[in-house]
């Protein structure tokens, strides 16, 4: 009984995790072995074995959406990290108005992605959008933001930066505020100037936090769906079709649920490896041994 006791107590949590999280994953994996369409019985769906996975490996469309995702991830995460860290360093000091600005600044983070998509769809609208309207004052011709491949890609990158920079900002500012003040003072005594202080002391000391923020954003990039779905639907062409949106389009536009499931399995593997990397690389306890 003594050995079973602990397991008994975590059983409810495990049961919920298993049904809520594990079941859909297993189901997706199971589905990927069938050629199934919506409206037909799963029992009648033909068994295709690993054929979906083999097809996926050479599918140019899948490859393209992965490329788009990585390109999207590169630009958004790079800019979000730079902006978020810079703003955190600027607003870390208790200057007048900093707390108000901090609150205003994290608002985008609290808006549902669907709403974000809608807001920016109107802002980017070629005919009635504010962006074209104000660009007009600067003498810039109205642009078809969401109809041009490069501009649409820029639009989704811009929207993502708008929504997610605050995320980096709050994580980094929390990390900065937890730094031991005596160590920071020691570096001033050692003669570090402003940027040496940041580059050689502050940033290295929050390294694990930066790694975690980066990987969390990377996972989010692979899961991003709603904003792109509403803003561009993946278009024009496939210019903004991220991996998860690609899966969605495969499943519900082209009715290839089995194949879409196979791509989902790939997505799960990618996200799983990234999550695992968080635990290994960025273990926050590693650097915290009482220094």
């Amino acid at each position, binding site marked *: 009984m003594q050995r079973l006791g602990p397991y008994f107590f975590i059983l409810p949590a495990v049961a919920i995790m298993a049904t809520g999280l594990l079941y859909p994953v297993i189901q997706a994996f199971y589905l990927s072995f069938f050629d199934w369409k919506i409206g037909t019985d799963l029992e009648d769906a033909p068994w295709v074995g690993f054929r979906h996975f083999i097809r996926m490996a050479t599918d140019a469309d899948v490859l393209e959406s992965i490329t788009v995702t990585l390109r999207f991830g590169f630009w958004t995460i790079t800019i979000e990290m730079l902006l978020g860290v810079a703003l955190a360093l600027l607003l870390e000091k208790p200057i007048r108005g900093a707390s108000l600005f901090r609150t205003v600044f994290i608002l985008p983070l609290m808006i549902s992605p669907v709403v974000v998509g809608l807001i920016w769809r109107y802002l980017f609208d070629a005919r009635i959008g504010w962006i074209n309207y104000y660009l007009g004052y600067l003498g810039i011709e109205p642009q078809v933001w969401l109809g041009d491949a490069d501009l649409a890609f820029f639009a989704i990158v811009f929207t993502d930066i708008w929504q997610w920079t605050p995320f980096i900002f709050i994580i980094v500012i929390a990390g900065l505020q937890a730094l*031991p003040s*005596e*160590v920071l*003072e*020691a*570096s*001033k*005594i*050692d*003669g*570090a*100037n402003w940027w*040496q202080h940041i580059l*050689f*002391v502050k940033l*290295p*000391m929050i*390294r694990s936090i930066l790694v975690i923020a980066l990987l969390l954003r990377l996972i989010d990039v692979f899961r991003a769906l709603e904003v792109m779905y509403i803003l561009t639907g993946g278009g024009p062409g496939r210019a903004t079709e991220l991996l998860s949106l690609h899966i969605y389009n495969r499943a519900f536009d082209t009715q290839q649920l089995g194949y879409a499931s196979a791509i989902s399995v790939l997505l799960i593997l990618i996200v799983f490896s990234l999550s695992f990397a968080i635990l290994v690389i960025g273990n926050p306890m590693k*650097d915290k*041994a*009482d*220094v």
Partner: protein
Amino acid sequence: MSGVRLSGVTKDFGTVSVIPSLDLDISEGEFVVIVGPSGCGKSTTLRMIAGLEPVTSGSIFIAGKDVTWAPPKQRDIAMVFQSYALYPHMNVAGNMSFALRLARTPREEVRSRVQRAAEMLELTDYLDRRPRDLSGGQRQRVAMGRAIVRDAYCFLFDEPLSNLDAKLRSAMRTELAILHKKLDRTMIYVTHDQIEAMTMADRIVIMDRGIVQQIGSPRDVYNAPVNRFVAGFIGSPAMNFLDGEIIGGDTPAVAGDGFNLKLSGRQAEAARSHRNHRVTIGLRPEHFNVSGAGGTEASVFAPIELEVQVAEYIGSSQFIAARIRDVPITASIEVGPDSAPLKSGEYQFDTSRIYLFDRESGEAIARP
């Protein structure tokens, strides 16, 4: 004009005045310990010297230069913090050489200076380790090393030993004293531990509530405290205080509830000019004894009744926690290692070692 000088320095935090006005003159090469209870402003004083805390008014001079508004790095100082404040992401060599690397010192010189400091502190085997892989004592040495490598004009220490265990602390005390001899630099050391102050300082600055109470050599502040606060703060175990009155005319005594001690020598002289004065009597624990033998030539013993509550055996002497009526008294009595626990009864006190303070102002009236 050299050393470190504070002139009319004040410090307010908001509406609270932490340091009303501070003047301090520290000569070059001197080891000064600032000591006082927590909240007395000693750390704030050190941080103002370091440039980590701006002064509210007044001036600070280091090596004759007015550095009142200079940032820390322009003050030619090195500092050792209570928490060591090592850079967790750098190894020992990296921690020690950080300041030199920032100053773009040639690599060869950095290496030799780190090597020299590491040898001095017996850290040569640990240069590649990260702080988290070191023990408390080793981290402490690295923090010292980081300061030594700088070869700064003035070294500041903010309670650097308070996180160490008792044994290590006393070892580091000795090493610090040796270090001071070797480096021959001005050192300002802040602590709440009067033993650290007594053992290491050339001069002790005793602070209370932001005000310097006394500045003097360890011998001075122990033998000739200017007031009751200093007397109670310096000495371990702490001095006992009894309220009493000066009685008698030409053969004065001090008496109070449960005691009556005849005065002689200096104390008697002072008492004659303070007839019937209300005083606080200071008795150091180490000046009690059992037989009334020993002491110095000037010693005159007088009996005093103690009601012993606990006698702590510590080898050749015993610490006793006792009472005179309701007033708690500590005494440290040398009785040899084989004696039985001390009991209540008549003890002797060396009246040539009595301190007398004015009961209202706390100012010293007479001292040994």
